[in-house]
């Protein structure tokens, strides 16, 4: 029985296909995506929307967020430093950094994003299951940092994916990243399952 096999592409064809994805993304992402910061006004509507069930679920969610390791450049080493024994992110329940996006809730993008890497970021973000949150760690992820004027750097990851919390610094200290994670916890606590 003959099985129909697809043709294996040559390296040149793979390169050309990747390049067309990059150019398409570059053209479509000229404006930043607005931040999902409606939760900051939730204070007023809080008593009506968040029920006890919501509160219990959200509390459980904050105590067991699984981060996704998406370290691109120097900030990745401060992220690993946050996970090691001195600054111990495991006491917040974020014990293991998952490598697969399907198993993670929180994507910490640490480092400079270039246009060549941007389709990969979008692909990984789309593979994560709802509910998901994004932290932009470091000056390069927030706005392009020192490299903003370069021909190949994305000026901030909020062009590609929506960002919940921005942690400034170059690189931010582990205490700074932990503060950013606590802000994510506050955001999750105000979430409702009726999303």
């Amino acid at each position: 029985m003959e099985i129909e096999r697809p043709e294996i592409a040559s390296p040149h064809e793979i390169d050309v296909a990747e390049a067309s994805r990059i150019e398409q993304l570059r053209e479509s992402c000229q404006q930043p995506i607005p931040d999902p910061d409606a939760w900051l006004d939730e204070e007023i509507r809080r008593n009506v929307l968040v029920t006890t069930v919501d509160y219990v679920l959200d509390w459980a969610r904050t105590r067991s967020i699984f981060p996704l390791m998406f370290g691109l450049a120097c900030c990745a080493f401060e992220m690993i430093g946050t996970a090691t024994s001195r600054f111990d992110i495991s006491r917040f329940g974020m014990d293991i950094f998952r490598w697969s996006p399907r198993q993670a809730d929180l994507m910490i993008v640490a480092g400079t994003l270039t246009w060549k890497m941007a389709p990969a970021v979008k692909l990984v973000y789309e593979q994560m299951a709802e509910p998901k949150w994004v932290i932009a760690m470091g000056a390069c992820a927030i706005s392009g940092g020192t490299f903003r004027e370069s021909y190949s750097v994305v000026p901030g990851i909020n062009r590609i994916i929506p960002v919940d919390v921005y942690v400034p610094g170059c690189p931010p200290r582990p205490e700074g990243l932990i503060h950013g994670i606590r802000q994510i916890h506050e955001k999750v606590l105000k979430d409702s399952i009726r999303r």
Partner: protein
Amino acid sequence: MAIRTEPFILNMGPQHPSTHGVFRMRVTLDGEVVVDVEPVVGYLHRGIEKLAETRTYTQNIPFTDRLDYLASMTNNLAYVLAVEKLAGIEVPERAEYLRIVIAEMMRISSHLMAVGFFLNDLGAMMTPVLYMWREREKLLDLFEMVCGQRLTYNYMRIGGVSHDIPEEFLPALKRFVAEMPGFLDEYDQLLAQNEIVLARSKGVGVLPEDTAINIAASGPVLRASGVKWDVRRADPYSIYDRFDFDIPVGSAGDCYDRYWVRVQEMRQSVRILEQAIPQLPAGEVCAEVPQLLRPPVGEVYGRIEAPKGELGFYLVSDNSIAPYRFRIRPPTLINLTALRDMVIGWKVADLIITFGSIDVCLGEIDR
């Protein structure tokens, strides 16, 4: 009965646990055996060389931090030495000694990470990394005492260093130097004769001596293949000729030798620190250099022995405040040329550890 197999291309994509950064490899496999490897780089290309042409010489120092971010001050040192060679600036004695002390501490810090992540790739999960990170945190505390930052320091200046050391630095450093050989012995006791480390890394990923010279490998990769070439000995820069240290050289050029050379280099760095600390003279820490430096027309190639290899800066100056050409010689990109030769015929797991033993840093490859 012969089974008909087909080669299959596996994409170890930019986001991957074992690729030490955003590095992509297209691996052609026949079953589990590697037939071809094609590295694809450029996912962190930030255009530093182009941006540096529009910044002054002093403003370029923070760019050099972001190259090999595990040994940032060594990159600063390489750049600053090149500019001083171009402009003919003398550095005060105290600054020279401080630079050597800092450079050797950075070498220990970078090799701790290299060895820790190599063992992580071998399968020891995060345990060796956490042990090595314990020492690295002590070093990071010392760096924070000196210049206030933990990772990207921007400490060296053209003509010296930027701040003098505070009083608590030297006693803390002496304590660290006294304890460090004990920690290295602890690692040796746990790891050097470990059956799994020996079985998985001896004889794997061999780089013969003549190939290593032909591809211009440098650093521990070159020395593990049997070539006794260290820029600190062959072409001494700063005041390295005043110190007494050995150059560890491997014999087989396999992954175990690269790991062994790095551990021995850490011991030699401790030895240099023990000699340098008592000799630290008093004095100024930076020469008088104009803020907008205009070096004379000319060019220079300045190189140092960075932990990952020979880091060189080729600067062309046209007597203006910004360099005309700012070129960085990336040691790890050049060391990577032989990856294909080292892994053909081996299995996927061996590919991972051979790649880990070269110890790349993507900030430097892509610039």
